[in-house]
């Protein structure tokens, strides 16, 4: 009896120590965000006060107001990014689902060869083809438009692979009985496949939104007009033009992170399970 009690107490202590250790790591992960939010409500003068104060003594909104003053492009970048990310989601979901369904459930000549050729696109990382892509996009008059960001992102073999695995898991019997009942392939796709694939589609949509929203390299290279720029790159320009005002930058960074963090907090199950089940790319 006493032995058991002692063992249980030892177990509890172990849990407490391990929790404390994890909490330290977790704090390292979220402290920068807390610092950002806290600083965005402080006047510049108080930002570097020592010791650091999480809750500002007198919170102000001035930093946020400055982002929306006349002539500031911040709201413009915000809308650009939102429109670009949403358009990407619509086009990408359609393109990927059609392609993945064809590879999973339809028989056509050369299917496997075509699949392998498409798969080769995963071997060429984006950083390696920046110059070449710039040249191609320039000739197609895509540079300096948001289509240079939307269209390439919609041709993502990674998600074709993931969705194909998903469609392949749907039993053939289900399709065949629908064929007997007189359904066309288009109808099967619409009425059976898409509804069944909803969780997988949601994972794809979430990750794609976050990637597009956060993307820095592509808009940096392919968009040249400041007014057509996206939020990520806009923030860096802001950093240069507001060289000393860190507090305003923090307000901008907070607003840039806000939608992503909200989506993540409410739908984190889909992020984490999406990675765990499919081995998401980095």
């Amino acid at each position: 009896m006493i032995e058991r009690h002692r063992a249980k107490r030892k177990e509890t202590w172990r849990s407490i120590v391990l929790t404390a250790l994890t909490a330290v790591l977790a704090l390292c992960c979220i402290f920068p965000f807390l610092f950002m939010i806290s600083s965005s409500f402080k006047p510049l003068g108080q930002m570097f006060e020592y010791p650091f104060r999480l809750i500002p003594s007198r919170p102000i909104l001035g930093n946020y107001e400055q982002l929306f003053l006349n002539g500031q492009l911040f709201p413009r970048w915000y809308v650009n990014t939102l429109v670009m990310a949403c358009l990407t989601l619509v086009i990408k979901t359609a393109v990927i689902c059609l392609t993945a369904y064809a590879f999973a459930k339809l028989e056509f000549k050369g299917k496997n060869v075509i699949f392998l050729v498409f798969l080769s696109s995963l071997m060429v990382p984006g950083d390696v083809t920046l110059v070449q892509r710039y040249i191609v996009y320039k000739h197609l008059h895509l540079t300096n438009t948001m289509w240079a960001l939307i269209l390439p992102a919609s041709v993502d073999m990674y998600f074709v692979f993931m969705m194909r695995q998903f469609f392949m898991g749907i039993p053939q019997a289900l399709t065949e009985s629908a064929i007997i009942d007189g359904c066309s392939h288009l109808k099967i796709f619409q009425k059976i496949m898409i509804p069944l694939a909803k969780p997988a589609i949601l994972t794809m949509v979430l990750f794609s939104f976050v990637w597009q929203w956060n993307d820095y390299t592509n808009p940096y290279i392919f968009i040249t007009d400041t007014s057509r720029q996206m939020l990520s790159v806009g923030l860096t320009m802001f950093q240069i033009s507001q060289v000393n005002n860190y507090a305003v930058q923090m307000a901008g960074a907070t607003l840039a992170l806000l939608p992503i963090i909200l989506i993540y907090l409410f739908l984190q199950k889909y992020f984490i399970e999406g990675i765990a089940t499919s081995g998401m790319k980095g």
Partner: protein
Amino acid sequence: MISLASDLVSGNAIKTKKKKLAGFRLQEQRLGYLFILPFAVGFLIFHATPALISFVISVTNMRFLSNTADLKFIGLQNFIEMFRDQEVMAALGRSFLYSALYVPIIVLLGLLMAVLINCRIYARGILRTSLFMPYISNMVAIAIIWSVILDYKDGPVNQLLRALGCENPPLWLMGEHTALPTIVLIAAWQGVGLYMVTYLAALQNVPKELYEAATLDGAGAFKRFVHITVPLISPTTFFLIITAIIGSFQNFGIIQVLTKGGPGEASTTMAISVYKASFEQYRMGYATAQAMVLFAIILVFTVIQWKGQRKWVTYD
């Protein structure tokens, strides 16, 4: 008798079923091509063309786009020049240094976090959410925050170090020797969530009976970890190490946003060098040749990963 009749009926049913399915096969051919058409067009334009023209551009003296009049075929000259160019070779060295720092940090930290989260701890949900948070965050926002936190003069980190009696705290992103390691730390901090979650899934797949049996045999926690956990999650470790290597060579975004390759050339890696050659010096041919060398390095590890995956990971 009855069974014979029912056989006949079902035989007919099978015939009509086969007919219907055969009609469908024909429709399927056309539909299959139709469904993959948008992707195929996009693949040709956005993946195949840029990849294929690399071979052409890298053997020319191509300057900026508009200037195609004196475009010349110069053979392997770009490649030869590159290996004599000390700046490019230094950048290549920095890329390897970046990789050598990044890979062990992110893999070990990911494992540590996963093991902790997998232990019997309190508030697991909140802690896991916090640990994963940097992964989904905007790189530029993160860069701004960290440049402020690590600000040499006023940043909270150096303030703390000074308060603790450190007279010459590090210059972090501004220091010639500290810039690259600091970028690696920030990059690992941001990316580690992915490694944690992947490891977590692997840890949860280790059969509990193995641990129980080992405990009965008197193995302590450390022994169980070394002799059961480590070998059983080794496919995941392999996968993650290669993923980390491949990712570590693609560091353009994070470096450009944090230091633009500076101070001086201190954090100019191969990816930054390609950018500088093309978009600052407008030497497209030379830049493409450099990009191809970077690609060749990444390709080696990609092939290793695919080969290993076939061996270790089963898709069913």
